[in-house]
């Protein structure tokens, strides 16, 4: 494809170049936003990570590699690793729960679809701190769930449902499940029904139709959903504190504590930078895979 272009006459390529420049004015606002709110701050983080901490926060401009050395202590690597594991588990569970939900919603009549989508989005209209406290009221040892179970005679002693690593996973899952359902629903919604009909007409069982037609075509949506869940789950620090009881900390707590408790901006910057890089890598991989999938499906 490119080789034929290379041999083409310059005149023939000229209009292409102009077309290539045409989007620039449209891109400018977005690029400006990204540079001011992403590139420059991340650059600052990188810059700060090579200096010493001031006694009261701030940065003392004496070059040091200490922050990067500290990052590779087992303790901090462990917290980062643990955060990845937690975010991954939450993402997988969200996918397993979210896919059937999205599939079901996509199959509803337009009226009920709207109702279902509103129900999915509804929790976002409440401050998430308030929703987190609501979970605490429900789940704590003296909470409603335990009271009901004890009242019904199902259990004698309250079940400890809060302040465990599992509770963190449940809290994050609740918080971000809608972010999985929405992109999945969108991709399932766009599926051409005739493709499924064709599969059925060719003798595929419903399961096989799902496996060979629906699932592959909805993968880009699933990947988007995974990113939407993984990224905030990885960096959340409120849930580990409130629902995890502060006993299991994630990288988000570490970053926050560096700035607010330890007043160690350079190390906080180092941690935040590593977190950002990790998440950008995840997103780049996701979009590469996603592109291959869509190209593949177009070719197929």
């Amino acid at each position: 494809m490119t080789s034929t272009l290379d041999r083409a006459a310059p005149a023939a390529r000229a209009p292409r170049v102009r077309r290539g420049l045409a989007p620039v004015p449209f891109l400018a606002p977005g690029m400006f936003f990204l540079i001011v709110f992403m590139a420059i701050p991340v650059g600052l983080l990188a810059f700060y990570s090579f200096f010493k901490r001031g006694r009261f926060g701030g940065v003392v401009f004496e070059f040091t590699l200490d922050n990067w050395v500290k990052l590779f202590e087992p303790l901090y690597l462990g917290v980062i690793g643990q955060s990845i594991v937690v975010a991954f588990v939450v993402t997988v569970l969200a996918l397993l729960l979210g896919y059937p939900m999205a599939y079901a919603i996509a199959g509803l009549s337009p009226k009920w679809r709207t109702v279902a989508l509103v129900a999915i989005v509804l929790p976002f209209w409440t401050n998430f701190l308030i929703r987190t406290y609501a979970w605490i009221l429900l789940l704590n040892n003296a909470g409603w769930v335990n009271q009901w179970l004890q009242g019904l005679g199902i259990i004698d002693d309250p079940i400890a449902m809060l302040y465990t690593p599992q509770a963190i996973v449940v809290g994050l899952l609740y918080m971000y499940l809608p972010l999985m359902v929405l992109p999945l629903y969108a991709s399932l919604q766009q599926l051409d029904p005739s493709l499924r009909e064709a599969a059925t007409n060719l003798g595929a069982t419903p399961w096989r139709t799902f496996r060979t037609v629906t699932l592959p075509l909805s993968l880009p949506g699933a990947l988007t959903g995974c990113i939407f869940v993984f990224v905030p789950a990885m960096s959340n620090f409120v849930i580990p504190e409130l629902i995890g009881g502060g006993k299991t900390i994630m990288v988000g707590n570490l970053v926050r504590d560096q700035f607010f408790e330890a007043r160690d901006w350079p190390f906080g910057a180092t941690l935040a930078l590593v977190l950002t890089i990790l998440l950008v890598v995840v997103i780049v991989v996701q979009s590469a895979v996603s592109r291959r999938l869509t190209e593949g499906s177009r070719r197929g």
Partner: protein
Amino acid sequence: MRSTRRLVAASAGTVALALALTSCASGGGDTAGETLDPDADLSKQSLTVSIWSDYYPEDLAEQFEQATGVKTTIVNHTTNEDIVAKLTASADSGIDVAFMSGQYAQALGEQGLLAKLDKSLIPNEENLYPEATELAYDEGNVYSEPYAWGTTGLCYRPDLTGFAPTSWNDLLNPKPELEGKTTMLSTDRWLAMPALKAAGYSVNTTDDAELDEAKAQLLKTKPTLLAYDDTTFYSKLVSGEAAMVEAWDGWCNYGIAENPDIEFVVPDEGADLWVDTMTVLNSSKNKEAAMAFVNYILDPEVQTWVAENILYKVPNQQAMEALDPALVEQYPTLGISVDDLMKQEAIVDLGDDTTKYVDLNAEVLATN
């Protein structure tokens, strides 16, 4: 000390940062030798005071304005770290009077950020207990005047514990039936304090071996805890989730307010003495008004209000003596005598060794 309301702090952090960045930097020079004018026309001065949220009478600004004519704005901070970050972010934060705990006043005083208090403008200092002018972090109250003080101990429900705890070990190595029913503070110096005190060490120790021993104990304690909790520990007692929690004395009162059975004890090994103080910034252009404000707060009436409404002890002898005995009976921590309070160890700033505690906290909290 006011708890680090971490969650609020988290959301307020961005605001704090924005405030810190927008505060006009106009080089506050060193004013150590500055003499203040006792006859200055205060009505021509204006004042910005930064104080912990929910820690002062709501109409304090109006009250002070009526009394002195100084136009006063009160802004809030959530934690010591928060206010220190604001004050150190630029040469002039625009804040004239800042409230912070003693060890922070000590550190900022040493850094030259705080003005020496002009005692001729603060006659109300005489209302303080003599002990409140000889505190380790600022002997003679050179840079700071105390606003409220207290200690840390065990806040517990006898109906759930079945016994009255007397030692930090009751929390650190709890009886089997208390496992999963206790919480500890996890902020700043209060995570290590029980372990240090139980082993007979100073709350200000910087000895690595002693800190390692404390860390080992805290890691041993961790699996027995319900949670680390700096903000809602008293609610956990009220709800019965927890039977015993490490608590600041004043905060235990918030539990007692909802459940009169809750009790507070300072363990036999002793605890810390924390002091929340008022300081005047060197960069302030309104020092006479600032001194007048500090003086106003030391008025027994104002401090009585603090004790009665915030339920913290105040270092003001007149105010404490004026307290309604019924209130002291209801909230026994208000009745802890000055002598008993002085037996506790004042937290002081540790300079660069502060990081030892930061690292200890990180390791204890991050280890599973």
